[in-house]
């Protein structure tokens, strides 16, 4: 049996040649420091031999508020929609939560361009994995894959800080089968539960909601609650005090929305609207995008109304 392990190849291949059938594929697979720097140039230009790092044409956007947490109803991810470029709001309606496949979304923080590209690369690799192995890769496996793919760029200007929110579990070829599939996480061996004998007990089954934070500096953390971005400190207190396992979907959505709203109020680089995605065993669903400006005026009206009733009743 031939186990295909794509991870080791990425460490040998030059980052420019991911999946490309380029005739200029170097015979020596190990990337030299020179070729790493050339990865910042567009690939159709002739590869230069210079060792000068190419300066960025303009400051890349970095400000954002994204958060995600796990609860009994699955995984909830929320983010603002402002893409800023130093002081300019480059796009007030950008998408910071990108779906990767039917049961996984990823929040993006850092340079928007880098995040969008790497999400697409990850989505492609996960789909290839699914076709080769007949099952979806777990969220933790996907995080490990993304982390290993980003590793060759450590030390460069690449900036990707993503949280992968997914629901693991379920087979590709029998969707009607509700039995839990037991398998060891992060290996290629499959141990299906419907075999009459030879069941191997595993320490924990990797099914259910899952949340992993991956950063281009090499951090990979499994957790239950993450907030990433320049606005994250402002959002943390709201989610810290409100999130627990037993939340209903409505409560969880309300907390996520409020946390993003408070962060956008204080952080200059976050703002405009809020996107909320909810991942369950049936896949991800997206809530209609809401303008936080309306939220601000609603709250002001409520506060002045409350102030009046307090004064009247006092």
């Amino acid at each position, binding site marked *: 049996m031939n186990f295909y392990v794509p991870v080791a190849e990425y460490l040998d291949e030059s980052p420019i040649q991911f999946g490309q059938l380029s005739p200029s594929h170097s015979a020596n697979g190990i990337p030299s420091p020179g070729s790493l720097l050339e990865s910042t140039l567009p690939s159709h230009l002739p590869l230069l031999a210079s060792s000068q790092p190419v300066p960025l044409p303009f400051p890349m956007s970095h400000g954002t508020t994204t958060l995600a947490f796990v609860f009994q109803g699955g995984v909830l991810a929320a983010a603002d929609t402002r893409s800023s470029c130093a002081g300019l709001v480059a796009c007030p309606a950008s998408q910071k939560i990108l779906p990767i496949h039917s049961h996984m979304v990823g929040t993006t923080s850092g340079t928007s361009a880098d995040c969008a590209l790497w999400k697409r690369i990850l989505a492609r690799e996960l789909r290839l994995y699914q076709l080769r192995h007949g099952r979806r890769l777990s969220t933790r496996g996907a995080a490990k894959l993304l982390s290993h793919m980003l590793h060759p760029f450590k030390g460069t200007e690449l900036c990707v800080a993503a949280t992968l929110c997914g629901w693991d579990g379920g087979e590709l070829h029998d969707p009607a089968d509700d039995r839990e599939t037991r398998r060891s996480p992060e290996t290629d061996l499959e141990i299906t539960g419907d075999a009459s004998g030879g069941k191997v007990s595993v320490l924990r089954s990797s099914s259910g909601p899952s949340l992993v934070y991956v950063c281009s500096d090499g951090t990979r953390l499994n957790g*239950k*609650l993450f907030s990433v971005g320049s606005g994250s*400190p*402002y*959002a*943390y*207190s*709201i989610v*810290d*005090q409100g*999130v*627990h*396992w037993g939340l209903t979907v409505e409560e969880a959505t309300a907390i996520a929305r*409020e*946390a993003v709203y*408070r*962060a956008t*109020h*204080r952080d200059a680089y976050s703002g405009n609207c809020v996107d909320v995605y909810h991942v369950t065993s049936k896949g991800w669903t997206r809530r209609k995008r809401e303008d936080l400006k309306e939220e601000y005026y609603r709250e002001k009206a409520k*506060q002045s109304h*409350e*102030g009046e009733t*307090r004064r009247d009743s*006092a």
Partner: protein
Amino acid sequence: MEKHYTDSRAKAVSTGTTILAAVFDGGVVICSDSRASIGGEYVSSKTINKVIQVHDRIFCCMAGSLADAQAVIKTAKFHLSFHSVQMESPPLVIAAASVLKELCYQNKEELQAGFMAAGWDKKKGPQVYVVSLGGMLVSQSVTIGGSGSTYIYGYVDAKYKPNMSKEECLQFATNALALAMGRDNVSGGVAHLVVITETGVEHVVVPGDKLPRFHDE
């Protein structure tokens, strides 16, 4: 208030800290954590009290370089007691804040400390003032400061309501401190809360194990 006081070039004892002051119906709550650290790496004290009394009904919270803050407060205490003897009445809270502001502003080159002054006086009732690093004086009904304050801006914006009762305000302040201490590594220890009303002053200490816990801590 500025949040980053961990100037590790000087490696002075600085209060990476969380301080909060809030006005409620009939009084004011001023509170802080109790951790002092050097350069953000070594906790030099787990139990210092950053809420200092400068007069009967006026308290101060300090943030920044501990040495600078202690020196300024000592001077301010002296000025205030002299001032109250001259005026033959307890000083106004704004007087205490102005004394601190003068000291911070006139010595802004040498000092690296910011303050919150909170108290009760007969003229305006409960008040909170903030004196920032360079010497700006501002009156606010709720204010937070120190490095841990970034993590509770959202909470304070959402949960603070004017004219709360004393119990509500105490719970609000304790929750805010607990949240900040949970996320900021240079804030921690116990929570010192001081409640100042017309009738008197009450010092509440909430030890670490009695602090409110959130989700899976």
